[in-house]
């Protein structure tokens, strides 16, 4: 059985990668971006 084909049949791996990708690249990275915004200096 070709390795690629086995990969496509692995339901749990697909689920894991499918959920992890947006969680890491969109949600986590996005939250990091938002949380690193500086405060507008007072008295400008």
């Amino acid at each position, binding site marked *: 059985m070709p390795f690629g084909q086995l990969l496509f049949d692995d339901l749990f791996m697909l689920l894991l990668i499918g*959920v992890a*990708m947006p969680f890491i690249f969109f949600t986590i990275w996005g939250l990091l971006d938002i949380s690193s915004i500086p405060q507008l200096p007072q008295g400008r």
Partner: protein
Amino acid sequence: MLLATGVMTLPSRAAAGFASRICQATGLVVDVAAEKVIAANVVAAIVFMVLGGVSSVLVELTRAEWLQAMAPGLYYRALTLHGMNMLIYWIIFFEVACLYFGCSIVLNSRLVGVRLAWGAFGLMLAGALLTNATILAGQGDVLFTSYVPLKASPLFYLGTILFAIGALIACGVFFASILVARAERTYEGSVPLVTFGLITAAIIAVVTLIGGVFTYVPAFFWSLGLMNLDPEVYRLNYWSLGHPAQQINLAAMVTVWYMTASLTTGARPLNEKLSRFAFLLYLFFINLGSVHHLLVDPGLTRVFKVFNTSYAMYLAVLGSMIHAFSIPAAIEIALRAQGHRKGLFGWLRKAPWGNPAFSATILSMALFGFVGGTTGVIFGHEQINMVHHNTLDIPAHFHATVVAGTTLAFMGVTYYLLPLVLRREVLWPRLARVQPYVYAVGCTLHIAGMMIAGSYGVPRRTASLAAENAQHLFAQPAYWGLALLGVGGTIAAVGGVIYVAVVVASVLFGRQVPASAEPFRLAPVHTVGGVTVTSGVAAKEHSAPGALVLVFVFLAFFILVWFLNMWRLASVWPVS
């Protein structure tokens, strides 16, 4: 039309341990208990579609400016109702039905946890009714996006949470059923492509529903005054739900395309590896596109935006490009094998245009591809987004994907679900035959109207342009666009009414199948002109020159849309 021969090998343990019947048309083993849950979900889907449809007419006749059907307050309420019912309830109930179909009937297996499936149905129904009631009571005029700090009644968020938990349970039932089917060996080797596509949709649904928990649980507590919620964090979390929800539609719609192409013309996947790879690209990358809504937001850096808005260097778009070729090519090869070999497009002329499932599929593919897909990618271009964000161009884009694409495809496959799953003869076949055309023409005009108005900068989600009119702000063509929006929307609504009428009449009054033959011929799926079309090899039978020409025309159009938008962007004021 018994097709229990050929590649369709009946499973060794067919009908073992669960009440079932053999489908006369496809030879598949049908779990009777699954059938009932599927029917319930389809019926719920259509009920919510009616609710969303009624509100859509009100919305569209208000936006058509010269009519002003509703006062602003009511307009925003109707728009909230329209968004929730069409984008969430209609489509997700229908998708849950598709999931149950793909994990049981397609695999010749049973639905595991039928009681859980009914429980999920109950939760989804309760949630949908609660949210709808809250909106109708005027306690949730916050639109589909419900951006914090615009506040709705806590019941609005609670209803959405209940619905999400129900849908999450439905996904669990789907995955469990696939695992059980594998353990019980009701299928050999890999799952069929349709099930693989539905697995993609289900995993995207899991992403969506996790996003839903991150979004609505804090919003619920915030609405009770129990916690603070940062508006930008809410926006980020919201779109980790809101956009993936539409990617479920994408994956489910493409799956339905493969299914209806098979059922109507006997098409077989061109190359299993290529089609599955395309689904894999969706699975890995499509949900990064959630940032499309946040491109002109404060707080997100350029690297983040460019990487995510392009779904990791447009790899997910490559998936769509693959489907754009592989489905028409599979149809072409099947029809050529049936003897329609004349010229480049002889097969297209001889295609079963009178079969509503076929016409719906082709119209859905054309409108999704040319209008919805291209605009989705181009409006999501980091810089180009500035000249489209929150204008009517955006609803124009997603009505081309979700309405002219997904809804039309789902309408098409319903004409097979009726005889095959609901076991009802399709009543009024003549009406059914014209339905996809009416709906597609209506959608096209409606979308064109929005696109025209949007290109003049007319904002979306706005009850009236009276304040803008006082300044003579928009050029006259913008108002022609708004009028066209109304005309097209009304025609589409007629198409929607025909669909609902045919389905409801068939379910209530249609004769039991197989008391009579299906009105729409099922393609001879196993004997495609006596030719076995295998994947990946056999160069002669494998050639699809017509489809190849079509996709290059599509690519040229795509590039044109891109260039026009870059030119438009270059004409605005320098900004950074």
